[in-house]
């Protein structure tokens, strides 16, 4: 995707700046941007290491198991079609736990494993099954307990209180997730009805 977007951005902005005689601004912003990427990465390093360290303590305790257990009823509600498939349920719940803790790098492989397991019992192998769609929708909803990256950016830009956005983020994610899940459930119902006719 970026192989397409990045050159377009560069070509548009550089040629527009050259034609509109904005060269001095362009030149200074080239070095400004590179420098702010360095600044952001350095300040981000602190927050990222702190959080990765804390989460690594958590993954070595039974907290993950407890969260898995707490998610069971939610998973049964969201994925009624795989009530018998314990393996798929487990993978989905581990994927959700990883997402909640903000372990993006661990969440994706777990989610993809769950996709494979769901594909095994998918009736039409060329189409996403209802459970697969629900899994993708949940993964795009990004339910995360601490939005670490954005807190790191805020603190690197000198925000007065970098964590003050946590509850607003929770409110917005939960609304998005509820709507996403409801829309998915409704569309599943509608498509089931259409198949019967």
């Amino acid at each position: 995707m970026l192989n397409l977007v990045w050159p377009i951005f560069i070509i548009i902005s550089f040629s527009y700046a050259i034609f509109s005689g904005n060269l001095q601004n362009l030149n200074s912003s080239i070095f400004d941007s590179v420098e702010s990427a360095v600044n952001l990465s350095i300040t981000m390093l602190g927050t990222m290491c702190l959080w990765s360290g804390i989460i690594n303590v958590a993954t070595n305790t039974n907290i993950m198991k407890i969260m898995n257990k707490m998610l069971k009823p939610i998973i049964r509600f969201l994925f009624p079609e795989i009530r018998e498939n314990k393996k798929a349920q487990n993978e989905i719940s581990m994927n959700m736990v990883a997402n909640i803790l903000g372990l993006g790098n661990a969440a994706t492989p777990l989610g993809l494993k769950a996709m494979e397991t769901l594909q095994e019992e998918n009736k039409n192998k060329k189409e996403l099954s209802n459970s697969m769609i629900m899994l993708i929708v949940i993964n795009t909803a990004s339910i995360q307990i601490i939005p670490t990256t954005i807190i790191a950016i805020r603190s690197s830009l000198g925000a007065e209180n970098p964590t003050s956005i946590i509850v607003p983020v929770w409110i917005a994610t939960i609304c998005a997730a509820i709507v996403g899940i409801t829309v998915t459930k409704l569309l599943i119902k509608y498509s089931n009805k259409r198949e019967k006719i």
Partner: protein
Amino acid sequence: MINIINFLSNLAMPLIILIIVIYGVIEKKEVFDKFIEGAKDGIKIVINIFPTLIGLFLAVGTLRSSGVIDIVIKILDPLLKIVNFPTEIMPLALLRPISGSSSIAVATDIMKNFGVDSQIGIMAAVIMGATETTLYTIAVYSSSVKIKKTRFVLIASLTADIVGIVTSIIVCRFLS
């Protein structure tokens, strides 16, 4: 109400750290060793994303300084005024579903330009936290099982995204 939200926001991170550390101690784990082990992964994450950030900060920074973003905003402004959508946020809303790292660049650019604690700056932060790179996620998940017929997954997740963005804007307006 605003005080409660601020209090909970400030409580969240310390409380979670406290619970995790206490848990580690109760279960007799080598808490500090595990912390160090994990913190090393944090370095890897930042190093991995660093080259991408350089490239995308360059792209977004020059889009801003050349005046291209201003033109896009000017074109969209009358339309967005009707629905009372803050135009300054639009570049972020458009890029967010497509690419994670370029939306980090755009969000940082917005926070820097309008002030990290300004209403627009906070909106950009909340949107970043509340939404995901939807199109990218759909592509990775569907192609992992070699499926091209994705049925209604795009409609469902983009609806969720729009709700996430709109709620972020409403909540930020309410708070400031």
